[in-house]
């Protein structure tokens, strides 16, 4: 593959850079599949938010739509969470991962038309799975609710996607592997192993229920820690230095962050079962791993902070950077919260309270989703050759998303604290724990409405973008005036 090269005027010549022609060719090869994945992820984001709105309102007002089995809370809640994980986050991970891999491998994506079939199959799988949950075939295993007839479809689609990523990595231009590639590779390697293991042992041919607890927790935790998080982190490691044109501050911190994530974060699942029906050593291993899991969080965030140091101002005008850096700090806060919640003292009180729901919201939304929003804002203009048409919609998206997230998180945290302490207190009744948390749940339901507005703005923006209404624009869509007027600052 002889792509036109470009002599580097960057000081660090360790890595050969990529010319614009080469980039354009690579982007053209990824256009079909990546647009399909990103577009369908936004579709599922809207569906998932609407389901989440229904579920959160049903928690506040139980009589809402309880007449039919189809929309009982016990089905809308798993439908919402599985659509968000598999329909939004995983699909966006595929789109972003394919594009970043192609760029970093410096070769065009081979056979990209077949990836479009993979995308269609994946979406069909998610559709079938969601319908399956709503009609009552769900497995009642958090994170693994898609019925046994839908999950093989997802695995088939995945195997096509992963094959092409591995081939692309294999045929990459020789040179050092950049840190994003390690993370993406880890994520794409671990996901099928996780998903297949969990499905075989828990759904298709379930083992005795006595052994299912640890496996279900291992799966759910690693779905975030070893699939969504590595892809999101790999994306941040690509986008941040690219947009601000600075090198990554410390390669050793990158290495440390990567290996400690894989080694420690894979064991943190069992901290959700402290005191439960698992052998004592597994509970303690989960807690110890959760304590040690602060190490990759700190390494990665510190590394990127040192990279961003002095360039945070770009967040005020670049939508990409704004969302991505919020995603990074979402990672920091969700990691610290996860470590704190694993400590036995907190765990005993808060294990079954709304605080856990808040922590997973912070992680899935505040970290993973924000990062993928930033990535979509970066990638799509390059594929369509158009700029984002309406800055107002970007502002709507950002502010509704941030306010919805902060409001939901604080309500879940505060309400959950009250609920947890009330449930822990021997003198207090269960009824009082419900009454304490009720107003907070109402506020959470309202904040989900904000999230729905954010996602509708985003979806509308994407549709307008596809219709190329922004073709007439001459420059990138910036949220504010940049403080400097160099070409570098407009590289958003």
């Amino acid at each position, binding site marked *: 593959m002889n792509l036109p090269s470009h002599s580097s005027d960057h000081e660090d010549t360790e890595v050969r850079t990529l010319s*614009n022609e080469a980039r354009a060719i690579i982007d053209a090869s990824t256009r079909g599949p990546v647009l399909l994945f990103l577009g369908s992820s936004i579709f599922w984001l809207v569906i998932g938010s609407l389901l989440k709105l229904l579920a959160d309102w049903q928690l506040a007002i139980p009589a809402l739509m309880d007449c039919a089995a189809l929309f009982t809370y016990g089905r809308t809640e798993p439908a919402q969470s599985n659509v968000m994980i598999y329909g939004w986050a995983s699909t966006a991970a595929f789109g972003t991962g394919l594009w970043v891999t192609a760029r970093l491998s410096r070769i065009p994506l081979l056979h990209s038309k077949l990836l479009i079939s993979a995308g269609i199959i994946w979406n069909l799988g998610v559709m079938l799975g969601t319908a399956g949950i709503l009609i009552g075939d769900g497995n009642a295993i958090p994170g693994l609710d898609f019925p046994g007839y839908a999950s093989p479809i997802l695995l088939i689609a995945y195997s096509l996607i992963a094959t092409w990523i591995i081939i692309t990595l294999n045929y990459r231009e020789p040179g050092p592997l950049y840190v994003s590639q390690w993370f993406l590779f880890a994520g794409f390697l671990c996901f099928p192993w996780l998903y297949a293991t969990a499905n075989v042992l828990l759904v298709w041919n379930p083992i005795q229920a006595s052994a299912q607890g640890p496996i279900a927790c291992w799966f759910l935790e690693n779905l975030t820690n070893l699939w969504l998080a590595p892809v999101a982190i790999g994306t941040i490691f690509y986008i941040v230095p690219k947009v601000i044109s600075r090198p990554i501050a410390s390669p050793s911190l990158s290495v440390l962050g990567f290996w400690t994530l894989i080694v420690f974060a894979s064991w943190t699942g069992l901290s959700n079962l402290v005191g439960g029906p698992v052998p004592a050593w597994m509970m303690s291993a989960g807690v110890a791993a959760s304590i040690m899991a602060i190490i990759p969080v700190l390494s990665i965030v*510190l590394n990127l902070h040192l990279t961003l140091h002095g360039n945070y101002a770009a967040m005020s005008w670049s939508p990409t950077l704004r969302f991505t850096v919020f995603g990074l700090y979402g990672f920091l806060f969700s990691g610290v919260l996860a470590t704190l919640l694993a400590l036995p003292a907190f765990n005993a009180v808060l294990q079954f309270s709304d605080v856990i729901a808040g922590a997973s919201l912070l992680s899935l939304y505040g970290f993973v989703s924000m990062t993928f929003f930033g990535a979509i804002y970066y990638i799509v203009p*390059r594929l369509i050759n158009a*700029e984002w048409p309406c800055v107002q919609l970007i502002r709507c998206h950002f502010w509704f998303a941030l306010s919805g997230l902060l409001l939901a998180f604080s309500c879940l945290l505060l309400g959950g604290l009250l609920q947890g302490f009330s449930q822990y207190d021997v003198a207090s009744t269960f009824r009082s724990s419900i009454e304490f948390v009720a107003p907070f749940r109402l506020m959470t339901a309202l904040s989900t409405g904000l999230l729905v507005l954010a996602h509708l703005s985003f979806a509308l923006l994407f549709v307008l973008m596809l219709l190329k209404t922004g073709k007439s624009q001459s420059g990138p869509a910036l949220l504010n005036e940049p403080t400097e007027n160099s070409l570098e600052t407009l*590289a958003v």
Partner: protein
Amino acid sequence: MSNQTGEKSSIPAPVLRENPEPTSSNAPIPLALTSVFFVIIFLAGIYLALNSGGFRSDVFSPKLVSWSGGGAGGVAAPVDPKVVGKRIFTQNCVVCHQTSGLGMPGQFPPLVGSEWVVGGDWVADNHLVSILLHGMQGAVQVKGVTYNNAMPPWKQLKDDQIAAVLTYIRSEWGNAAAPISPEYVKSMRDKTTARTEPWSQKELKAMPAESAGTSAAPAAPAPAAAKTTPSA
């Protein structure tokens, strides 16, 4: 950006303004951070070592087994005999002797403060165990009151069950007497295998008093005790 004029229109404007691909610089990890990380790993390791329940698959409470091991047989947590004893008492004895241990006046004798339970002038451990094994009939004096009823034999219960229920009644409701061990029950069972009839008070009085001797304290796990090992 050195592009030929002809190609310029095919390259998207966003690509044209892109920065070079990301790279890494060469700064080392700050030493302070490395030491913080080592401290965290060390503390987490200590937590795991102290709370691992011996890394056994049948221990579900982190503090139950000490770091040096302990807990013989297949089970790390021996059952407290008083808890088992209470259960057996509730299932078998409360019908007559009541949960309060006070019995029914005129019908069933009380166990609270009874000399038969805690020992009296001539009543000793062997008499109590014998009663449990083979039952009693005829007139019986308990705390100065005469009862004339029949107590069924309970020899179908195992040694440790009889020992547990006797230990329970000997330490409940204000009673304070030495616990009975399963070995002692076994020895009494062997001694009285020929017996088929329930005892009368006269026959028991004729038995010389015997003490059960030293026996394991109820709460401490007896290392060689044939406790409730799972029969699966």
